[in-house]
């Protein structure tokens, strides 16, 4: 058994802030005494990641994804709990630790805004002490997969979001880090750019064994990249496991969609504990819980009762799964 590359236990981050009351009197009072409020952005999160894994870290807005990433990258100090990444405690050994990781925040750039991209790369080369030879090889790889040479001589502010993201990804990997953190790496990108970014990540993971932890709102990122997902909500860990079992656990529901010649009466729509709902004219859907009834017997039931002209079975989409988690939590 290899040593995990990321080990997080009991991780908690509490933000303290001062409540601002309305009105002049309250404002004056706050000069003397301020009301402190505490918000636990992340509470008691525990997981480990093995080398070479690609893990999706998902949750609704404000669930605590970014806060977790910021603690894992040494930017924020945990209120309590422990983190060990690459053998370092991130906030304690920050300077040495960050030399061994790559980080991309989709909403920001780590490149210098007003100067040519290539100057940023040259600076990063010096910071990480990359040799001339390695640098050349690295840049060649980035150009083959990401095609960055086309805009190396432009300042970052003149790049499109997709171009900028490609450069940022390249920048985060210039020193061949074994561990890569991505916070919303595909946010705002068009389909082509997204596909390009995903391909690149797959290639880096396959060829260099780079371990990747990524947060995203785009679940097709997760579906193409990650076999394992961690779901957090309101700062708490809800689920940690394979994507498929998340789907089974949350939505063990398959829909049978069928078309009919003659529209049935409302009373006919409820049968044997199943409920058909109209989704279009002459088209109905029945959601079945496969723990209770098999898809085959549900189809038989439907065919017996209605004059079916067409029928299809739909597996739940991961989007649906996650929407349901965000809405209802995990039972």
């Amino acid at each position, binding site marked *: 058994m290899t040593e995990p590359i990321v080990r997080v236990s009991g991780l908690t981050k509490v933000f303290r802030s001062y409540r601002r009351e309305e009105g002049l009197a309250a404002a004056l009072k706050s000069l003397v005494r301020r009301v402190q409020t505490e918000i636990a952005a992340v509470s008691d999160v525990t997981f480990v990641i093995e080398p070479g894994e690609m893990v999706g870290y998902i949750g609704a807005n404000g669930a605590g994804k*970014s806060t977790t990433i*910021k603690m894992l990258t040494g930017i924020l100090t945990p209120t309590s709990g422990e983190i060990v990444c690459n053998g370092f405690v991130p906030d304690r050994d920050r300077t040495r630790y*960050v030399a061994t990781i790559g980080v991309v925040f989709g*909403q920001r750039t*780590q490149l210098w805004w*007003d100067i040519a991209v290539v100057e*940023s790369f040259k600076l990063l080369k010096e910071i990480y002490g990359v040799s001339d030879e390695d640098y050349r090889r690295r840049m060649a790889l980035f150009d083959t997969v990401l095609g960055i040479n086309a805009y190396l001589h432009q300042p970052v502010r003149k790049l499109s979001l997709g171009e900028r993201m490609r450069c940022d990804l390249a920048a985060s990997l210039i020193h061949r880090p074994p561990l890569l953190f991505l916070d919303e790496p595909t946010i705002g990108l068009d389909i082509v750019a997204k596909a390009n970014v995903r391909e690149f990540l797959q290639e880096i993971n396959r060829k260099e064994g780079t371990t990747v932890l990524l947060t995203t709102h785009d679940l097709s990122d997760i579906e193409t990249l990650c076999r394992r997902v961690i779901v957090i909500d309101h700062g708490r860990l809800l689920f940690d496991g394979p994507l498929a079992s998340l789907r089974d656990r949350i939505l063990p529901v398959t829909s049978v969609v069928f078309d009919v010649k003659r529209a049935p009466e409302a009373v006919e729509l409820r049968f044997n504990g199943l409920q058909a709902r109209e989704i279009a004219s002459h088209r109905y859907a029945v959601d079945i819980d496969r723990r209770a009834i098999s898809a085959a017997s549900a189809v038989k039931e439907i065919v017996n009762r209605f004059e079916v002209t067409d029928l299809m079975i739909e597996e739940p989409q991961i989007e649906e799964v996650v929407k349901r988690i965000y809405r209802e939590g995990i039972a």
Partner: protein
Amino acid sequence: MNAIAVRPAMSFARIGFLNMLAYRARYYVGVLTYLFNVAVYYFIWRAVFRHSPTVVGMTLPQMITYVAVGWTIRSFYFNEIDRDIAGQVQEGRLAMNLIRPVNFQTVMVFDAAGQSAFRAALFTLPIGIVIALLFPVQPPASIAALLMFLVSAVVSFFLVAALNFLVGLIAIRTKSILGILRAKYLVLEVLSGLIIPTTLFPQPFRSILFASPFPHINYTPAALYLGKVTGAEAGRLLFLQAAWTVLLLGLGQIVWRRSQHRITIQGG
């Protein structure tokens, strides 16, 4: 304490230099501002000297030179590390400096050094020449005075950088330091000896001031240029200037280390 890695540090200086090239309008406005300031103080001092031939042991040409030298080196040592850090805190860009394996103070100081190197060549030098042509400025008192002045002006940069770094760190706690920045500019211009020579202050205020780092920003290099201080006294001032710089840079490291756990990155 982290040893400063020279190559990355110089790379940050290079970035600072390149950044300065990005905005031209600011450059031209800057030149005019300095000329205007020197002109204003030139006329003020001329009026003052109408009533007495010397003020605190300085003649009118010396005082004009003091003002001109002061503003000229200000164009070099000036930096906005504090405003920069405050902006990083407010916009959450600070995170980007934290994910790099380089000491934050090194990054900020050398980035500013690159900007100052740019200023020295393309800003301070032309300003100095234009001022020398427009106003009756005296040459340095001696070769030794000139050399000591140059060294002192460079140390001034690091002294101001160390101070501004500390001021910038306040933003980590308070988020906004706009008020502090405005106050700092006013106070520093007076206390550094830029607007009036520090020796003009009455006792005991003058002694208190000379026990602080502030006069070393502007008074010390200007006095060295004029030859107002020489020999052992010059050495003492240079030593004090350097000692304050090292002390404040060290203090910056300590405060930075203590502030880090208070960082909250806004947004994202």
